[in-house]
């Protein structure tokens, strides 16, 4: 459905690192591109939603396989 332009694996890391790495990755992308971020920190789900709301980037999909979340974020600006 969505083909990510870039992927980062944050499994094993804890807050704030998944968001810090997401932020760094998004900075290097261009508007419209999609980032896939994987994380198994249970706090990532509320954190990334909150981050997307504040920064205005679009959280296009969240799925979970086992303990690992997969977030798809579209850079908006």
């Amino acid at each position, binding site marked *: 459905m969505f083909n990510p332009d870039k992927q980062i694996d944050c499994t094993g890391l804890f807050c*704030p690192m998944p*968001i810090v790495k997401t932020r760094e990755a998004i900075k290097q992308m261009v508007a419209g591109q999609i980032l896939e971020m994987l994380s198994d920190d249970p706090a990532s789900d509320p954190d990334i939603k909150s981050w997307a709301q504040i920064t205005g980037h679009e959280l296009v999909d969240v799925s979970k396989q086992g303990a690992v979340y997969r977030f798809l974020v579209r850079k908006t600006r």
Partner: protein
Amino acid sequence: MNAGAPPPDRIYLDYASFAPVDPRVLAVMRPFLEAGIGNPSSPHSLGAEARASLDAARVKVARLCAGTASGVIFTSGATEANNLAIKGAALAAREPGTARIVVSSVEHISVVNVCRDLERSGAVLVFLPVDGEGRVDLDALRAALAGDTALVSIGAASAEIGTLQPLAEVGRLTRAAGVPLHVDAVGAIGRVPLAVESLGIDLLTLSSNDVYGPPGAGALWVRPDVKLRPQILGGGQEGGYRSGTENLPALVGLGVAAEIMRTEGLHGEAARLAALRDRLRDGLLAAIADCRLTGARAARLPHHLSLALRGVKADGILLDLDLAGFAASSGSACASLTETPSATLRAIGCSPEEMEGSLCFTLGRWSTAADVEAVLERLPSIVTRLRSLAAAVRR
């Protein structure tokens, strides 16, 4: 007491993130760095001297939290103490794989992330809700204790919003349920009455730098009958709970810092700081529109003020304050790294706008009335200027 204070050209209002080390503490530490009195396990007379000094530091730290000296485990800081308390207790529980851990929703990240790690391997986490001032819901705690709980961990005070938790009530509930209670006492120890025995605390975390001691040291006080699984293995120092040659200079410093903190506490330092803080609070609330106190008004850390401002971002204020010679913070380092509102502010129901305009001022041993007046003189105009800039951008 001016030596050791922050440089005079800067007004320092960020004691919670780093406290200047007291010069009296530094003076006591110096010989331990220079004279070979280093390893308490060494079989020579210098080793014996090191052992005696370490034991003396242990007694002083125990006195600060009113517990037995044998319960003090020295660590590299509060983060390590929190790791040891929570992982140690959860992994020593009857069913370590599925241990139930109960924490408040306004804990420090070094408590939350340890719990999250245990959750990854099967532990069950219960986050207790807090009220609008950040005080933990005691009914929710009572209900949470109904299950087979390995540990309750509730910080004495929130570093971000300063609110004190009702520890006496919390301790009564955990003791009645027979569940160990861990209290992260950073910020509170030495500033508010905190005695492990009378409050029913089983594990207590403290930080050296928080009490004007050197950074890189801390302690976990543990009640003798509480079972803990050590987290750092090796030569069996610190009763086997924390291996590794002790950081003697820092721990001797922590001991002296704890003793000074305790005696200063008996001489009204908390009241002095609370009076300065109240003046700062009242002055800022009167001079700045759309600004409110976050956290509790009365039941809060005496040196702590946190505010939420609307229509202006904390980053901008802190930058302008820095340029004007003031050091303050937004209350959460994590939040500024990620641009994400802090979990604590979310838990107390701040609006997204308020979360971006969150400021935190922490006073300390070298804070003066002149410092407070200087902030009152400068901050309102900084806020006015930034708000009008923001309004111009919106137009």
